[in-house]
């Protein structure tokens, strides 16, 4: 479904990604784990077209997307929940969700999805008229995921959904992620520092170090891998 073919991405003169290649098949949950600054977020930003790769190509369902604008990429069915959630603080919860469906025109289906999101996260329904900035961290993460779902993506990119949240909330968020994958048939590309949780729900995983993919295997195998255990699982 998604094929990242040997991309190199730079911030000015600094190279953030070196010859990165990743493949994601339809229906999968794949995870990209690695330390701070390894280039995980940059990988997602390159897919979304915010920080385009300087060389190399990215294909989505056979179509090259590495030269497209961010809004065109969203239009093809790739949504991202970026790191830090990036809720619009002065817009209400409802307006944040409406913006998630910005490119859609099917009003009836949008309404149905809104109901679905409110069912998934009842707290958002309660707070729908409240400004996004007044929500707690966990609620903002729920809103950020819901906003992305409102775009009905076929591929959902999630960047550090567990960041700064209480363990109980993290548990809940990860359950929802699995649910979205199974019930909506949404393919998921999950970037996480919490390697244990990520590998537990992922079908396959990639390990990234200083801008390069160093290891790839199934989630279960990576959990047993000695290097991964030592470096990321803390056992």
């Amino acid at each position, binding site marked *: 479904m998604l094929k990242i073919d040997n991309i190199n991405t730079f911030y000015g003169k600094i190279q953030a990604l070196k010859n990165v290649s990743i493949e994601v098949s339809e229906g999968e949950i794949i995870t990209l784990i690695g330390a701070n600054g390894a280039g995980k977020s940059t990988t997602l930003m390159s897919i*979304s*077209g*915010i920080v385009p790769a300087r060389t190399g190509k990215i294909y989505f369902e056979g179509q090259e997307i590495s030269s497209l*604008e*961010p*809004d065109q990429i*969203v*239009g093809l069915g790739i*949504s*991202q929940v*970026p790191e830090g959630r*990036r809720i*619009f*603080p*002065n*817009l209400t919860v409802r*307006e944040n969700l*409406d*913006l*998630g469906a*910005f*490119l859609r025109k099917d009003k009836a289906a949008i309404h149905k999805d809104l109901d679905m999101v409110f069912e998934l996260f009842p707290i958002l329904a309660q707070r729908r008229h409240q400004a996004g900035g007044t929500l707690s961290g966990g609620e903002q993460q729920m809103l950020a995921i819901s*906003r992305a779902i409102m*775009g009905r993506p076929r591929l959902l990119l999630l960047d550090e959904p567990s960041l700064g949240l209480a363990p109980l909330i993290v548990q809940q968020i990860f359950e929802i992620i699995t649910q979205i994958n199974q019930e909506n048939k949404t393919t998921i590309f999950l970037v996480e520092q919490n390697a244990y949780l990520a590998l537990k729900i992922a079908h396959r995983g990639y390990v990234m170090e200083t801008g390069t993919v160093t290891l790839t295997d199934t989630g279960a195998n990576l959990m047993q891998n000695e290097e991964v255990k030592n470096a990321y699982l803390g056992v």
Partner: protein
Amino acid sequence: MNYFTEVVLSGLTRGSIYALIALGYTMVYGIIELINFAHGEIYMIGAFTALILASVLTIFGFNTIAILFLASIIAIVYSAMYGYTMEKVAYKPIRNSQRLSALISAIGMSMFLQNYVRIAQTSDFLPFPRIIPRFPWLSALPISMSSAQFMIFASTAVVMVLLTFLIKFTKIGKSMRAASQDKVMAKLLGVNVNKVISVTFIIGSATAALGGILISSYTGQINFYIGFLAGIKAFVAAVLGGIGSIPGAVLGSFVLGLTESLGAGYISSDYEDVFAFIILAVILIVKPAGILGKGQIEKV
């Protein structure tokens, strides 16, 4: 009618015009954090275009109402195109450079447009035709309001209502608010931020041009320089209200307009223009974020 009402009425007239210009300043600032110093020139170009069109239409023998509407609408559209082009030519290519570059580009654009009009037209004051017809029913009102003043109040009110509706409830309005809060996130949701910026310039230029046309038919004369002072004062109004805030710009404009009129009417008309800058100095000392502006908290 007593003197006080007259002074207040003239203050509200000024305030309305400042508001029409300040909207463009504040909307552009809200989205790309640029003080578009060439914004006042759009106001001047709007007035000039309307003058030329009104003269041509008069030669062709159109009646007053037709001239008013045709000249205004064409001039507004034409000025909006100027605003659109200005952004594409002077600001878009340097959007990712330092903020100072864009500011200098804006000042350059302002000088260019002023001198372009000076050369293409004239540096003398030109009489502006009274394109607003007399409304006889206005004399039935308890206060004496000229038809130009009535037109200014009515148009400003309509623009404010339309703009509020546009920004609060329409899709483009929501994407404008989103882009002003977080451009990257807006892009990640499929908002074409370039288009949003263009629309902002188009709307701001259209309201400024409307202001230019209205005030010129009220004062009855224009030259290439009218945009400069009006632009600076509208800028003061926008800062006074809190730059980036639309209700703030409107409030700031009326505060400024009333202060100027009351100051000129009761203290001295020689210092009319000085009041605007006294207000600017005071607000920058007392409340730098403006009346309705939110102070930015820098998180470390």
